[in-house]
């Protein structure tokens, strides 16, 4: 047996055809569904008992999962890529039936393996009317080209009367703060706004259970914050939410957290309980929230509550032996921040951007008078919210297009002439957003070889380059596998190897860690650091201020202009806090914490940009307060 799609015969995963008539769908279903839902005890939104689900390919997606979601609860599901989170989401919103166990959704016994007919299609159809789903990619969830029409789509399918639809559309657009965009074309909105349209569309169906499957994974800082605000409002309204995320700090807002590993629930409890299992969290490829990491490093009583930690730090700084933590093994980032490994002094800059302007349509510049330089072997982070011109800048840097005004030099080659641009392809590697989408060949090796072959390398040379690139990203033993059979994380590495195999002097990446779990993010960072150490200049667009703080230089774009430019220390300073917030960005968490503590009365902590720096600064300030322990062993 295998996992089966239960919705209307589209995309049937299992062996059995499940299209049984559309006759049920009519008005009668509606009335029944409503009646049942109201007739049931209201306390449980969903109950899964010993649920096991296998995909046709033999992959075990869920293994003996038992789970109850209480009405009004906010449940957060964590887990590495491929741990079964999305499958569980599909089961919870009635789109996928398991193979074993029993499933109760919003009062309907939709699946019970002990019944002669385990799947009750009719119950599934009724249950789905009270279940909502919003997933990662906002583009794919919007079915029409006017915002309000899209919000009305769900209620129309439910057969809600017209006046009531109008009321709901208005109410939900107000809730997600998009009333002014009611008539807009969703495809012209930012990703964050589109995602809010999708949420409004789900809410307009008044679901008893709303499943949000990584809704913020592809969004910028501002977009993600807006989603979290909407979720806060929903909690106040008593909506039951199941939230799947890769961002640990978001999980702190939940009532309960469960952690999945290879399809099984391995941890369950309040956020504080779950994150207190430090070792388990680490071995599961997740990470603790920032506050918990900080508390641990300071050897303070474990907590992941921000205000509790603040009090603890302020109290502890008056103790003589603060902090008592042994020095942690400095991670790569700290070592990197301390000593720049290689920027070659005196050599011509790897990239020189001089007064560059560019417009796709007349009168509206996508870039306006942008200038900066990147030294050979250095790393540059480009930050800015959606629509600030980042992607355009990357296209120009990769010599895919010439600037309208100004010049860009890659090494000593100017990108203005087409012939020169063509010469540069290969020596600038461009890793597009979601690079796994560019995979096309029959085997991994062929795909990776595409670039070097185009550059006209000899056969042996091509093979050597591919081998090296695949080793570098850690994809070994899959040469002859189809790239489409790799896991999501591996596909990204394969695409990256395809670029690295051309041995570019400059590597340009557009949000390389988007959608990856913490382990994947760490892995990719380590690879990029490796690449940089070999002398490759790295330019990356990122939404993560912490990632940006690890670069040698940062360019902040806002509305086609360079807002700030300089070293992380110059850009991320208390003085720029307001400016950055205004541009939809923020400061890295260590600095946010330092400022918070200073405002609460701590002596100046400097401007720490990494956890290590923050811990060290606190150590210094601790000794300054108490005039003790000058030769602390950790310094």
């Amino acid at each position, binding site marked *: 047996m295998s996992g089966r799609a239960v919705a209307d015969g589209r995309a049937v995963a299992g062996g059995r055809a499940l299209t049984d008539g559309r006759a049920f769908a009519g008005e009668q279903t509606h009335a029944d569904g409503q009646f049942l839902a109201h007739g049931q005890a209201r306390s449980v939104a969903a109950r899964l008992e010993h649920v096991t689900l296998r995909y046709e390919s033999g992959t075990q997606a869920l293994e003996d999962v038992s789970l109850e979601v209480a009405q009004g609860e906010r449940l957060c599901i964590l887990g590495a890529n491929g741990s079964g989170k999305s499958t569980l989401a599909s089961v919870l919103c009635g789109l996928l039936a398991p193979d074993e166990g029993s499933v109760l959704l919003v009062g309907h016994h939709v699946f019970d393996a002990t019944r002669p007919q385990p799947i009750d299609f009719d119950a599934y159809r009724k249950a789905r009317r009270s279940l909502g789903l919003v997933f990662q990619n906002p*583009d794919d969830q919007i079915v029409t080209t006017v915002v309000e029409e899209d919000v009305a789509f769900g209620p*129309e399918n439910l057969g809600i009367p017209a006046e009531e639809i109008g009321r709901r559309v208005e109410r939900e657009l107000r809730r997600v703060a998009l009333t002014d965009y009611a008539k807009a074309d969703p495809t012209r909105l930012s990703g964050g706004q589109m995602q809010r349209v999708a949420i409004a569309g789900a809410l307009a169906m008044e679901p008893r259970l709303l499943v949000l499957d990584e809704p913020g994974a592809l969004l910028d800082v501002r977009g993600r914050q807006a989603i979290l605000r909407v979720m806060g409002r929903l909690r106040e309204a008593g909506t039951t939410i199941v939230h799947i995320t890769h961002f640990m700090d978001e999980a702190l807002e939940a009532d309960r957290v469960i952690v999945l590993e290879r399809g099984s629930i391995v941890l369950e409890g309040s956020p504080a309980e779950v994150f207190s299992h430090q070792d388990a969290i680490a071995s599961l490829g997740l990470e603790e929230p920032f506050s918990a990491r900080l508390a641990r490093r300071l050897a303070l009583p474990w907590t992941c509550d921000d205000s509790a930690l603040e009090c603890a730090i302020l109290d502890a700084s008056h103790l003589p032996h603060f902090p008592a933590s042994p020095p942690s093994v400095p991670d790569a980032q700290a070592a990197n921040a301390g000593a720049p490994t290689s920027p070659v002094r005196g050599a011509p800059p790897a990239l020189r951007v001089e007064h560059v302007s560019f417009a796709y349509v007349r009168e509206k510049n996508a870039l306006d008078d942008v200038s900066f330089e990147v030294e050979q072997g250095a790393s540059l982070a480009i930050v800015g919210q959606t629509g600030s011109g980042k992607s355009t800048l990357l296209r120009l840097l990769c010599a895919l297009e010439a600037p309208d005004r100004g010049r860009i030099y890659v090494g000593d080659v100017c990108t203005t002439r087409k012939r020169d641009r063509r010469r540069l*392809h290969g020596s600038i590697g461009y890793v597009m957003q979601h690079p796994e989408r560019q995979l096309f060949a029959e085997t991994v090796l062929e795909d990776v070889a595409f*670039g070097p072959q185009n550059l006209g390398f000899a056969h042996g040379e091509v093979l050597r380059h591919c081998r090296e690139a695949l080793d570098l990203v850690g994809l070994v033993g899959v040469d002859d596998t189809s790239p489409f059979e790799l896991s999501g994380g591996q596909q990204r590495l394969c695409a990256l190897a395809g670029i690295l195999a051309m041995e570019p002097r400059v590597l340009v990446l557009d949000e390389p860690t988007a959608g990856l779990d913490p382990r994947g993010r760490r892995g990719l960072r380590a690879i990029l650091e490796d690449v940089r150490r070999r002398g490759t200049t790295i330019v990356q667009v990122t939404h993560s201020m912490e990632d940006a703080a690890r670069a040698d230089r940062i360019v902040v774009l806002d509305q086609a202009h360079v807002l700030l430019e300089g070293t992380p220390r110059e850009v991320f300073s208390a003085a720029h806090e307001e400016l950055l917030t205004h541009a939809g960005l923020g400061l890295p968490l260590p600095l946010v914490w330092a400022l918070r503590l200073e405002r609460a009365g701590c002596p100046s902590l400097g401007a720490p940009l990494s956890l290590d720096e923050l811990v060290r600064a606190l150590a210094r300030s601790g000794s300054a307060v108490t005039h003790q322990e000058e030769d602390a062993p950790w310094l």
Partner: protein
Amino acid sequence: MAVKITLGQYIATDSPIHRLDPRTKVCVALIAMVSVFFIHTPAQLILGFAFVLAAVALARIPAHRVLESIAPIIAIIVLLSLFNLFLTNTGTTLATFGPLRITDDGVRAAVLYSLRLVIGVLAGMLLLLTTTPSQLTDAFDALLAPLAHLGLHAHELAMVFSLMLRFIPTLANEASTLADAQTARGGALGEGSPAKRIRAIVPLVVALLASSLHHANDLSRALDARCYEGGAERSHWHPLRMRGADWATLTLTAAYITALVILR
């Protein structure tokens, strides 16, 4: 992000044309588009333009948005008219360039045939610019409903059509991003011999297919989650209703067709 494709994207304004029942608009647009093939004289041409331009004016859509939308098609029409100009051999010769001969019939065909096509393009574009995909779906659904007895899945067809309109810009955008990625990997898109070009486009097409499948998968998940069931009864937020203006428009269209026939 590359240039946005603006082909036929709904523009929200409030105008008499926007307010018409989508069924009326679909019928009138189809009639206007078919009628251009019966235009053979300058007088008919003028009448046709008067009819369609009046509609454009009533729709209160900025002229540049209309031009923007039809520009790619106009380019093709101009190309066709050049063929007409050089390849028509009947009539009096006006000028010769080597083997090419321009005749008065050729000039006439080039001007008349291309201009009358513009009328059709304008009518079709106006329909897309003033009607939301949901309205179009409803209209096609209603108009094709009688064919359901013949086994035609009218509603599903209409829905597919509307989703197609919705996803054209998304896929176009994706194609240009993928083309960028291939170019940066030294892929020679649009360069060299035809054989070479075709070979270069294979990676792009495969990747685009894979990603379209991905979109399709996601979309079917979204449609299921929002309880869309093909052929099921749904309610309508803005139910279709024929008003006075709709009957007036249909009458005007009938008058226009009659006039076209008279001017023959």
